[in-house]
């Protein structure tokens, strides 16, 4: 609901041109990459951290919620205004403030696009290691808020491993620097708390990140298997062998056939599963590991192991992975993507059980995922216009997540809890676990005005996963960005 007084104040802070409040203007900010919806009352585009602080003071004084938003590519509704209020879009705060190649650091504003930072430092032989599928558009502020992952986080770590310091704005408008440029900031690890807190503790207005040297050599292998079991057993064997690939992605047989029929990449359409593996490092190390990976794959009954000979062949191999999701999106009206994690030793039996769950509910489940760290992305293909199917899809999804937890895993590996999984949190956490997290949130965000209705169960919606919103989501967004970090459909 629009309060004219709030609107006037916002216009005073950021200028009239940088506030949206008309219904049709707000519409595109109701969505992100997830299937959720949340409509803000105002969308503002601050130019600097002082304006962010002023907006926070206004919010605090008037009791209006604030939600931060980067590019809106999130996959759990983290950036949606679940309870209305002010959506702060950081797209104007998109400057790289400094790059220090000697110490391998960069200081950026939250609206800097992930890939743009990597491009800016490529000539110095560096990159920003977290590589979510959305990296061409997602922002580092959003990556930090959600603790984003990606295929190469297997060896390089997720966003939190690359954030050294932050400047944050608290709900009362106070700005504080936490962490720093040097390692081992003294005191409690506040950046460790902030990264991944999904905008519920403070607003991030500046980020100091580590830059990582590009490896001397990258070798990409594609291993082709007759069955999914052989592929998952290869992953388990790789994990215990002592090789840490830079990335280890799996595509199952059902998906391969669909991908091949769309992109004709020369994939063996009758294969049971593919593993796409990057190894990197000093030349001798990468070459040695590539040979060892191929050997382990063959020992686990790989039909064929292709090794890319150069960068263009590597790109061709990654194309299958990158286009897989888009291809699946074309054969089904809707796709519902999950993001569970399991111990890697449980990959073979868990994937079998997921297929069984799907069969029981009458769904074919596509699996394209980060096998190396046990981060599953089972995709349920359905026609959500059919309410019966939709109901069964929700049940299927819930069963899969419960299975991940049962085998010792987690309800989300990289997409976040947001408003998609708040009700699933009790699967993992007891009431006292959640109470402790709330105590910390309340210490920083006492009035609950920062991103209300997220992470913790008891948000406004109730019942089950909000798949009903799925059919209302614009199809390109729902399918195109719907949940597979590791590639962005073209």
């Amino acid at each position, binding site marked *: 609901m629009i309060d004219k007084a709030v609107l006037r104040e916002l216009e005073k802070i950021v200028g009239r041109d940088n506030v949206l409040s008309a219904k049709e203007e707000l519409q595109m900010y109701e969505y992100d990459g997830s299937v959720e919806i949340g409509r803000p009352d105002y969308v503002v585009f601050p130019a600097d951290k002082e304006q962010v602080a002023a907006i926070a003071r206004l919010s605090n004084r008037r009791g209006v919620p604030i939600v931060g938003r980067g590019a809106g590519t999130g996959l759990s509704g983290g950036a949606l205004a679940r309870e209305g209020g002010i959506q702060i879009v950081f797209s104007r705060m998109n400057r790289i403030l400094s790059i220090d190649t000697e110490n391998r650091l960069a200081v950026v504003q939250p609206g800097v696009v992930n890939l743009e930072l990597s491009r800016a430092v490529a000539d110095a032989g560096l990159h920003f290691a977290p590589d979510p599928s959305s990296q061409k558009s997602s922002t580092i502020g959003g990556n930090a808020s959600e603790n984003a992952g990606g295929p190469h986080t297997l060896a390089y770590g997720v966003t939190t491993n690359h954030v050294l310091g932050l400047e944050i704005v608290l709900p009362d408008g106070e700005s504080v620097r936490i962490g720093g440029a*040097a390692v081992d900031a003294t*005191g*409690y690890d506040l950046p*460790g*708390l902030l990264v*991944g807190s999904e905008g519920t503790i403070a607003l991030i207005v500046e980020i100091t990140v580590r830059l990582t040297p590009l490896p001397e050599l990258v070798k990409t292998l594609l291993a082709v298997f007759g069955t999914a079991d052989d592929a998952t057993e290869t992953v388990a064997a790789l994990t215990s062998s*002592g090789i840490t690939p830079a990335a280890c992605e799996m595509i199952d047989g059902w998906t391969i056939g669909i991908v091949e029929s769309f992109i004709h990449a020369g994939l063996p359409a009758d294969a049971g599963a593919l593993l796409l593996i990057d190894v990197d490092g000093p030349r001798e190390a990468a070459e040695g590991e590539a040979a060892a990976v191929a050997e382990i794959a063959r020992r686990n009954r790989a039909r064929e192991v292709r090794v890319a000979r150069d960068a263009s062949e590597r790109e061709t191999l990654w194309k299958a992975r990158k286009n897989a999701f888009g291809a699946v999106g074309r054969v089904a009206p809707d796709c519902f993507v999950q993001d569970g994690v399991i*111990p890697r030793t449980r990959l073979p039996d868990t994937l079998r059980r997921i297929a069984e769950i799907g069969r029981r509910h009458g769904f074919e489940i596509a699996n394209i995922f980060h096998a190396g760290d046990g981060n599953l992305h089972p995709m349920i293909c359905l026609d959500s216009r059919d309410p019966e199917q939709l109901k069964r899809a929700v049940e299927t999804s819930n069963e899969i997540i419960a299975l991940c937890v049962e085998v010792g895993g987690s309800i989300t590996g990289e997409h976040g809890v947001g408003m998609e999984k708040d009700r699933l949190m009790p699967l993992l956490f007891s009431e006292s676990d959640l109470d*402790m997290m709330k105590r910390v949130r309340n210490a920083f965000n006492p009035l609950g005005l920062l991103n209300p209705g997220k992470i913790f169960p008891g948000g406004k919606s109730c019942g089950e996963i909000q798949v009903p919103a799925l059919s209302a989501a614009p199809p390109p967004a729902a399918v195109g960005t719907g949940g597979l970090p590791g590639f962005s459909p073209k």
Partner: protein
Amino acid sequence: MSGLEIQVRSLGEIVGEANTSAEPQRLLPYAIDGRQPAMLAMPSNAEEIAEILKFCAAHRLAVVPAGAGTKLRMGATPERYDVALVTTRMDKIVAYDPGDLTISVEAGARLGDVMARLAENRQLLPLTVPFLHRASVGGTVASGVDSPLRQFYGTVRDFLMGVEFVTGDGIRAKSGGRVVKNVAGYDLHKLFIGSLGTLGVITRLNFKTFPVPEASGGFLASFSDASGALELLRKIRHSPLRPSALEILSPSLTDLLARRAAPADAPQDSGLPRTAWVVAADFGGSEAVLRRYVNEMETMAGAAGAIGSSLPAEGVRTALWEGIRETVPLLIEESPGATVIRASVLPSQMGELFSVAQRCGDRYELPVAMLARAAGVAYIAFLPRESNEGTTGRLAQAAAELADAAQAAQGFSFVAWCPAELKARTPLWGKERGDWALMRKVKQSFDPEAVMSPGRFIGGI
């Protein structure tokens, strides 16, 4: 019955009479800066810890958690100290999944035992830290000590997946999980790293483990001055090489480690020169990888002006890295007033930090020894030959100047180990920063009655 007797009896009801005590003899190992707790409790599980902490919170009894007690001297002297809560009975490896490279242990498990168990599967936890064979895993994490292996594997925050803990008001909770990738909920466990027992008691920890490399090797280069050593470090950091450890030892530290590693009648056995700046590198991989490391490091050392270099023989290499690992305990034994400051700066500022430390040493007549890690962390020790009112004053000045220098270089400093008299008169973490107020909020959330190690941490927390 006295108040104390009643309290000890109450604790006995929770943990069993044999596992609590008020006898001075049994309390002695848990004294901090000469202050002994009034009682001791040794719980066997998290439930008992919750009961103890509820009792202590209700009676405002101050609690300091301890494992083996090897690092109780770290941090400020607690303002109050009633109960030593000792976790050594909680020493089990709860779950170990070698195929998934994950392990879950109780807080009181000895780090050395855990490492030995991992070694059976050719795996490791990159925590070669001081007091390795005695220290508990919980104490290691809570004290925030680091390992030379951080150069390759990162620090605890990079491989600690989850923690179970009890808050200062006796609530059992957890964060994170047991899988290597997980973004469900807040990473509360990260707050416990280096928290010096001020938030609660860690009861269980889940880690990623790592495979032991196929083979490993080392390289040593010596320099007549710090700038050559720093230049070699810079060259290695900017090369494609990824050593597992990369450190600089000041001449006095080299000398100390050489004396320790080899008897006086056979000094050559240590493999270390006696008075030189030394760069020590260690690396793992295949034979082909190791050859490349050695060749390139020799070339880079030559270009940086090394006066000598060597490939330490296996025994020498092992002894050297054990010495580096145990540097802090060795330094403490060296001097009655040993003051070890842990400072972190940008790697490019390390030379300036060395200079400031040396100038402080010269000005205040304090022998200096330094160990720096390539990541940008240095242990700077002032080692007065005696400990008295005069040395304490000079140490306080040196510590303050070093803290200012670190802060000016966008870095951090912490007087991690020093005599009790120095703690009483110098701020161990330098000047107040803007984020300390937020840390007080964190503290208040976990320990509303302020019973956990009160006053031991940053900003009087």
